[in-house]
């Protein structure tokens, strides 16, 4: 069992959890992910690593409640344990040799964008962070981003935080104003990553996206996480999770993410009712 040493709700649906997992902590790097199973009957949930502490032997994940398993995870308290915590999996983010990078986060994707921004900052890269949220009450990691960004652009859909507009609006403005990024790293909803990639393709800027498809084992065994990248089938768990955004077939990835939507909705409603009964 893996003990939860810290648990904090960052907004109504997003929580941070620091978990004792010495083996995963020993080799964890930004961009990689872990598989978490809340309890014996739970799903294997892939979550990208938000932070790690090799000395404490802990790994931090930040997750949004989107279904039964993440709801179960959110209901666990400090001092309790998760049934399984496996990692690190996937390939880490390439940070070497980059001089000027735009890190773009959308919604809970900012939780994964943060360790990437931090790693780049620590490597001496100039970091422009463009963080987008629906509204101010959903904002996470604001101070953390501010600390590792040379330029921190705040965007919200409704204008309650920073500038009203999309992350792509901010990115286009920066590029048009002469900012020369050697790479853009975009992490967020599939639609956001799709439009960031379309935009950067116009300007010929290399773009890396972090994919989070449905998967089971996370080690290359099921093939459920397969994506089409540059016309080839790739497994996000072992070949990714980061890919060249200009080559990813986003429309296919969006369709595949809906495979179990109906079952997930039924299951989520049943679990909500269960928790309501307990409380």
């Amino acid at each position, binding site marked *: 069992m893996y003990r939860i040493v810290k648990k904090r709700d960052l907004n109504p649906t997003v929580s941070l959890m620091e978990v004792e997992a010495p083996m995963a902590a020993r080799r964890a790097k930004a961009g990689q992910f872990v598989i978490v199973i809340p309890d014996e*009957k*739970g*799903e294997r949930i892939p979550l990208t690593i938000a932070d790690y502490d090799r000395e404490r032997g802990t790994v931090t994940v930040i997750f949004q409640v989107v279904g039964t398993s993440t709801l179960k995870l959110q209901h666990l308290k400090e001092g309790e344990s998760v*049934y399984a915590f*496996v990692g690190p999996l996937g390939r880490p983010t390439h940070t070497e040799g980059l001089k000027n990078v735009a890190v773009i986060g959308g919604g809970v994707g900012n939780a994964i964008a943060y360790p990437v921004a931090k790693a780049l900052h620590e490597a001496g890269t100039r970091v422009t962070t463009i963080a987008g949220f629906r509204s101010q009450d959903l904002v996470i990691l604001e101070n953390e981003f501010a600390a590792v960004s040379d330029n921190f652009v705040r965007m919200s859909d409704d204008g309650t935080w920073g500038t009203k507009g999309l992350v792509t609006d901010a990115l286009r403005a920066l590029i048009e104003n002469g900012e020369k990024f050697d790479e853009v790293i975009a992490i967020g909803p599939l639609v956001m990553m799709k439009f960031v990639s379309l935009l950067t393709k116009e300007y010929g800027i290399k773009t890396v996206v972090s994919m989070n498809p449905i998967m089971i084992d996370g080690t*290359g065994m099921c093939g459920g996480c397969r994506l089409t990248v540059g016309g080839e*089938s790739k497994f996000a768990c*072992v070949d990714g999770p980061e890919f060249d955004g200009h080559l990813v077939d986003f429309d296919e990835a969006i369709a595949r993410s809906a495979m179990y939507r109906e079952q997930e909705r039924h299951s989520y409603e049943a679990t909500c009712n269960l928790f309501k009964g307990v409380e």
Partner: protein
Amino acid sequence: MPNMSAKKNEMPSQAPDVRNKNFEEVALGYTPELAADEAARCLNCKNAPCVTGCPVHVNIPGFIAKLREGDPDGAYHVLSASNALPAVCGRVCPQETQCEAKCVRGLKGEPVGIGRLERYTADYHLHHPGKPVEKPAGNGHKVAVIGAGPAGLTCAGELAKMGYQVTIFEALHIAGGVLVYGIPQFRLPKEIVAAEIENLKTLGVEIVTNAVIGRSETVDELFEDGYEAIFLGTGAGLPMFMGIPGESLNGVCSANEFLTRVNLMKAYRDDTDTPIYRAHRVVVVGGGNVAMDAARCAKRLGAEEVSIVYRRSEAEMPARREEIEHAKEEGIVMRVLQNPVEILGTDGRDRRVRAVRCVRMELGEPDASGRRRPIEIPGSEYELECDFVIMALGTRPNPLISSTTENLETKRGGVLVADEQGKTTREGVFAGGDAVTGAATVILAMGAGKTSARAIDEYIRSKN
């Protein structure tokens, strides 16, 4: 006097139209009377040809003699001396091509039901465990085994019996490998696997789950941690696809994914969270045991029609005859001599499977595998309606370890290079099972695990 009946005793089993709606075990096992009667068919041949057919060389006449004497505990003692997982082997070994194929009784009639007697003996022990085995005295040497499947479990068990301190590292959250994620409950109950693994733990074997070697820790780090030798029993877990249009549609998955959802994650039960798509018309592509398992699971999940699409004829199917027969009895439709060329989807955003376009085939001259080569019949394409497609085309070894370990060579198909003793190209690293042979059987993997255990023992002795 031996029992001279030409036929072996049938095992009682669930009726086909009952069992294809539940996940309970199909075959129910011999009663003591049936077992005694079957044991009496063994002639106790001096040269014991059956033993030569067994990859782990079980003393078959020896354990059957004990059964004949009415001593199932003694029979288990003989059996378990050479087989670490007898309850598993009694169920999933292809006895018809191994021990039973060599049985003298098979010359005139049916061979002795060796597999059924093995199962009876192992199950008797599970229900009447008696005195637990004693943990052997340790020899102070540490060995790491990667993968808790048939090869790794066997290797670990053999080494533990010799006094080694063995740690198994398993990537998944439950030990058993293909025995828990691949082979379905109705063919191999997971409780049986768990009990066999408990037996290993009493021998002192430690099992660390959730450890993905190659990512969580590397082979080099294991050596640094003081393991003197490492056995790679990492299997062949990477699924293959056909590379035809439409394979990324929703409703197309690998047999590995489907079986993992059903078996490991128990998606067929209402009290687990992993979703499974409840399909109406299912097409399984492939003709091996995995295809049969996937088809039979799909049927049990309530599909109205489940077909197996296979490009050669039934005679060339690599699956065991017994599995093909069981599948047919349960209502699985065999669509042989046809091959998918495209998977067709619904229009609109959700992109779901609506049909498979198949082409009919005929058999030509034998190919490299010795089987007659399937050839497309031009103009014979048709659409087979379905809402779920399972690709059971075989698997390859996972490259996670070979790509992160120096001096560990692989060859065509991604399999590890290893000699007959399981020695790889890296000193102190041994390998066996599907990781070396490509997808094969449980018992061959167990045989390789056993051979490597002896080689590891020799290696460590030579170093000290």
